[in-house]
């Protein structure tokens, strides 16, 4: 029974990785990776970038400065900073940037990110509206990489290539690798018309579509997922521009990472329940047939494999303790080729690891043009799979009991 479950989950996990890789290798998707070089537009649409802030006095300046530095016609760009009831100096810090004609700073009562976005939506007539979280900065040519994608009328939103802002410790190096993997996933999911997240850092939307959909909504603290799923459920396409590079702040400590990921996973699960009519519904194509089911199963698989490995490790430790108790002999560790584990399970695990390395490498190439893996890759492969189930498990329990999650 357990063996059957293990192999089934391994098959599904491998299948999804292989499916993305197969899709990537198809010629028409490869073309998008070459999105580099000079970009010119026939006409420049007006763009409003919203910076929703809540207690961001330390990081908001860098965010606004990166927007001011954007390579885009000045008369076509608005920067709307919405202070969502901060209790620190966010508002006054942001106000200093109003010397630039493109910057407008608003203050409102705290209501959550979606209310800040809707507030901004009421104060702009721009063709495109985007969001840049106050812990992120965008590359100078970021907007010019995104806007041309909207020349395709079928596209209603474009997501960027998100990279980590800093890698000062091991945990951040591991997250850096994860973000490279996400670059690949985001690129491929968009190429398959299956993006189900429009990340806070620099996702740009067609304003008319956002208004048509009724603006942003509360989305279980993951409004970017709720909006993406709502767009998908109404048949709007979400594209990805991986060379529109955004750098975002990432947690430095395990605790803050844990809290962030519990929030993300909790939100994803609750939104998946809200949009459950899409799962398995062929109307929504790849998203409903492959992507959403695999994403949900992967959460279960992560938790299952964690508990299975933890159980086996625990059993081994208990055995060694009992062995010491009955013999008084401490365990000794020797090496012999005979005892190398060559079970089918282990070969499949090695295949899965190899595939992940290929995907991380591909993500790195798509996002940066480099052909080398990030230095945190070994750490990521060895340790991250043991960390992820911690927040997956917590999020599942909280989602079942609908406990809600907080941003901070």
């Amino acid at each position, binding site marked *: 029974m357990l063996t059957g479950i293990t192999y089934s989950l391994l098959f599904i996990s491998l299948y999804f990785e292989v499916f993305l890789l197969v899709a990537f290798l198809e010629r028409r998707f490869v073309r998008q990776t070459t999105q580099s070089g000079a970009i010119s537009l026939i006409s420049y649409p007006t763009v409003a970038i919203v910076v929703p802030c809540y207690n961001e006095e330390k990081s908001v300046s860098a965010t606004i400065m990166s927007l001011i530095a954007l390579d885009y016609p000045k008369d076509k760009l608005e920067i709307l900073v919405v202070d969502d009831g901060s209790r620190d100096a966010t508002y006054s810090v942001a106000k200093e940037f109003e010397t630039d004609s493109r910057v407008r700073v608003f203050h409102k009562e705290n209501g959550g990110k979606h209310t800040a976005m809707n507030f901004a939506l009421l104060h702009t007539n721009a063709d495109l509206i985007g969001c840049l979280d106050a812990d992120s900065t965008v590359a100078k040519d970021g907007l010019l990489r995104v806007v041309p994608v909207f020349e395709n009328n079928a596209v209603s939103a474009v997501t960027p290539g998100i990279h980590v802002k800093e890698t000062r410790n091991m945990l951040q190096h591991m997250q850096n690798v994860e973000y490279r993997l996400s670059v690949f996933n985001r690129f491929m999911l968009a190429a398959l018309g299956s993006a189900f997240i429009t990340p806070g850092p620099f996702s740009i939307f067609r304003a008319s579509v956002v208004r048509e959909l009724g603006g942003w909504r509360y989305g279980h603290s993951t409004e970017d997922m709720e909006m993406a799923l709502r767009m998908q459920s109404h048949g709007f396409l979400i*594209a990805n521009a991986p060379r529109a590079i955004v750098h975002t702040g990432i947690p430095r400590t395990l605790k803050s990472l844990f809290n962030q990921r519990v929030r993300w996973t909790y939100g994803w699960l609750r939104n998946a329940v809200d949009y459950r009519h899409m799962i398995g519904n062929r109307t929504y*194509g790849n998203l409903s047939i492959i992507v959403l089911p695999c994403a949900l199963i992967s959460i279960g698989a992560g938790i299952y494999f964690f508990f299975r490995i933890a159980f086996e490790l625990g059993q081994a430790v208990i055995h060694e303790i009992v062995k010491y108790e009955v013999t008084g002999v401490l365990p000794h560790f020797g090496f012999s080729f005979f005892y190398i584990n060559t079970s089918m399970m282990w070969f499949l695990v090695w*295949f899965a690891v190899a595939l992940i390395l290929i995907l991380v490498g591909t993500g790195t190439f798509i996002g940066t043009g480099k052909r080398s893996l990030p230095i945190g890759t070994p750490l990521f492969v060895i340790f991250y799979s043991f960390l992820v189930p911690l927040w997956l498990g917590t999020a599942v329990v909280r989602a079942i009991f609908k406990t809600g999650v907080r941003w901070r």
Partner: protein
Amino acid sequence: MDPVVNTTRARWGSYLVAFLITALIFATALYASNYFNNQRIQDIQTTEDDISTQILSTETQFDLLQEHSCSDVSETDLAPSEMTALGSELSYLEAQGGNQAEITRLKSTYSLLEIKDYLAVQELAQKCGTKPVFILYFYSNNGDCANNCEEQGDVLTALSQQYPDLRVYSFDYNLQVGALQTLISIDNVKYDLPALVINGKTYYGFQSLTAIQKVLPQLATLQKSATSTAATSTK
């Protein structure tokens, strides 16, 4: 043309290709696993053949004893050190799963070799007056012995390491080998495992290290330079 357009629809061709590739990965993993397991089985077969040859050699030496003195045959000619390693390897292989029929066949051969070694050592003792110290250990892998057999195996392995001249012959009680079932009958070992036969007396249930040392005082006479066989199962 923007590559994103019209890609929302299901890509059945890609689904099928990905399925076939994933199935191929599974098939490759299965093949690789079988290949290495077969390599292990071949290694064990080779070791068993070597041990068999050595026992046959010793038996032939017995036949020649009338013409030679006991000094030409020593206890160390029997049960070579490979026997210990072989027992551990078989135990590991059994725990890993795989070709159970082949593993059972190897275990049967190993049990026969143990019995032959046991008989040869006794014959040597009878003819040459040596005083071998040995334990017959009966276990079960059917789950009805569980923790006790696992711990008993650990104790006997530790004892073998402590007294390298000690011979521990471990047998899977349920193995359908004629010679083994005869041995069980001769020693009148009941299906109440783990069971140890020490100095002709059968002890049932888990026996601690000190309990064994107490009922086997000859352990004190053993040196630490000869070979011994270890418990083949930790279950």
